[in-house]
């Protein structure tokens, strides 16, 4: 089964290696991984998509939680979540087929970001099914190159679900205060427009 896991981490060097290392140590392939700063520059958010047995994923989430640099882990799978990916596609579009390709671009509310006499570069954002559908339609015209950012995702809820939180026993106020930006990150509206 496919799992989308959100991980809030300290924005330190080497943290990504710790996180990805947990997957590789268990022979577990990561389908996609996207990392970026949150609104708090000291916190990064990693979104990982991976296929796997629920039990293995459960174990990986627990192990992720144990990492000192990991602040919070959420399995967004089955959640009411917003997920988006940005994809750049370079597709053959000579004069004979250009208008057809542009129609597909319009249908998917994608954008043309570069044009030359032979090809178009298209930028599209969306969830997995939208991206797949568009790539499928473009395929017959000759896709030259596809670059994907990997999925990013967040829950629609105002806060992360309590049951998915770290079993947190706050040690002091500083830790409590530090927790807040993490929660805010989850409640912020998606940057990518629908």
């Amino acid at each position, binding site marked *: 089964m496919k799992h989308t896991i959100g991980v809030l981490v300290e924005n330190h060097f080497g943290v990504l290696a710790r996180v990805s290392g947990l997957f590789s*140590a268990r022979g577990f392939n990561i389908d996609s991984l996207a990392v970026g700063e949150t609104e708090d520059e000291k916190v990064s958010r990693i979104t990982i998509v991976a296929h796997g047995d629920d039990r293995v994923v*459960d174990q990986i989430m*627990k192990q992720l939680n144990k990492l*000192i640099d990991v602040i919070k882990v959420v399995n967004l799978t089955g959640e009411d979540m917003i997920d988006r990916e940005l994809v750049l596609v370079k597709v053959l579009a000579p004069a004979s087929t250009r208008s057809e390709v542009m129609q597909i671009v319009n249908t998917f509310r994608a954008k043309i970001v570069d044009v030359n006499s032979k090809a178009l570069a298209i930028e599209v954002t969306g969830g997995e099914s939208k991206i797949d559908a568009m790539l499928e339609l473009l395929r017959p015209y000759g896709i030259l190159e596809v670059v994907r950012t990997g999925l990013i995702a967040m829950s629609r809820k105002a806060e992360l679900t309590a049951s998915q939180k*770290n079993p*947190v*026993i706050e*040690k002091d106020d500083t*830790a409590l205060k530090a927790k807040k930006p993490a929660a805010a990150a989850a409640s912020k509206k998606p940057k990518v427009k629908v």
Partner: protein
Amino acid sequence: MKLTGAQILIRSLEEEGVDYVFGLPGGAILPTFDALYDSKLKFILVRHEQGATHMADAYGRATGKPGVCMVTSGPAATNTVTGLATAYMDSAPLVCITGQVATTAIGSDAFQEADVMGITRPVTKHNYLVRDVNDITRIVKEAFYIARTGRPGPVLIDFPVDVSRATAEFDYPKDVSIRGYTIPSEGDPAAIKKAADLINQAKRPCLYVGGGAVGSGAHKEVFELVEKTGIPITTTVLGLGIFPEDHPSSLRMLGMHGTVYANYSVQQSDVLIAVGARFDDRVTGHVAKFCPHAKIVHIDIDPASISKTVRVDVSVVGDVKPVLRQLNKLVKDRRKEIKPWLDQIAEWKAKHPLKFKSNDNVLRQEMVIAKVGELTKHEAVVTTGVGQHQMWTAQWYGFKAPRSMLTSGGLGTMGYGLPSAIGAQLARPNETVVCFDGDGSTQMTLCEMATAAYYKIPVKLFILDNSHHGMVRQWQELFYRHRYSGSQLGASNPDFMKLADGYGVKAIKIRTPAELEPGIKEALAHKGPVLIHCVVAQEDNVFPMVPAGHALDQVMDMA
């Protein structure tokens, strides 16, 4: 006044109450060793960095306080990997400081450079690269905190030489604040209530207790639980000593080389209460066939241990000691209700005792271990290497006190014995420390004999010499048609007596059962380190044995 990074590091170790540092100097750590020269910290110079990590590990296991080792960069740091992995698998608190090339040279393949952060990431609880002299105190404070709290483990600090030369004010922090690190403590009362309900209704309950209970310092609570309920108790190899094995409720050790009655009890139980144990494959045997009739209660500080290999019915995530304190208030005396079960266990005990052959005037490892147990009143601190002698030690020493069995249970690191005995002896100077080691295992770290000799550390090293890698030979005899591929040491073994002499260590040879008692007494009476070379039967096997991949009650018992 400003101090150098090296001075700050050493001062920080002093602030943490460190007394011993085990290690070996070299290029990138020289400024720090220079600062150590002025310090009140006692330094123990080892012969190989693996030894330093085992010493620090054993110091940690023997006291609960993180042991400390300090070595240089590159090959020294990579030599610590086995020791770190050993400590990590067995949750031993340890802080390891490695020198590193200057921050400006990192990544340039400089002399004695290794990616220590990358190499040690999977074998440490956490690791740090110090990039700023102003971070040293915080990092040291955090490292010790992380190493000893929660599920303990090794923490490594990689310390570049330029940072050790930079200067800053020394101001040691009083508190630690790590937002991503939380320690489960008390346990959820609702879950503890559920566990108590299960225990109070069980007809065939069994306690299975591991190293987590030892680490938590919960021996009194474990004892109280058994005394109050009358429930029989078995322990893992790392749990040995948490409960006195001469107590009628003790089933001794379970698992691959556990007692038949412990394994039968676990398999037939209807409620299994796992306490600070992690369902290792050497304990469970065939996982799918493990404990088929039981509801399982699991008390552990590590949420990731819950349902990792065996699915449990009730889990309590918390520190064993406070959890058991709450549980003990809720459980009842079950002796009457479970009498048929206790009778059954008594029958198994009578029918399948641990035994060894003793009527042929051949010296056997079991005899040596049992006799040392008797003569040390089962109160020595015992360390072992890995192999047959380790399992026989687990079976025959007769442990009574917590933190008295130090052995590499998880990683199975041959060579753990002698250095860990040295670490344990320094941690507990007034106690007798005995190491049982094999002729194969001991040669992996035998160089530390020099360390014991130089510092006059009075460890008693019993080399149980059967001229083989005995456990390997046993498996080859049983499962590989007696084809002893690579397991015979025989004539290639050194003369251990001369070796001891070369190190200036007292040596005693024991060849027959008659020489045993006087030999052991002489060794125990000697003030300094002693090597006791015991020439034992060459082709004995450790039984009972549950072959790998079999259910726990499919026991081979040919002893």
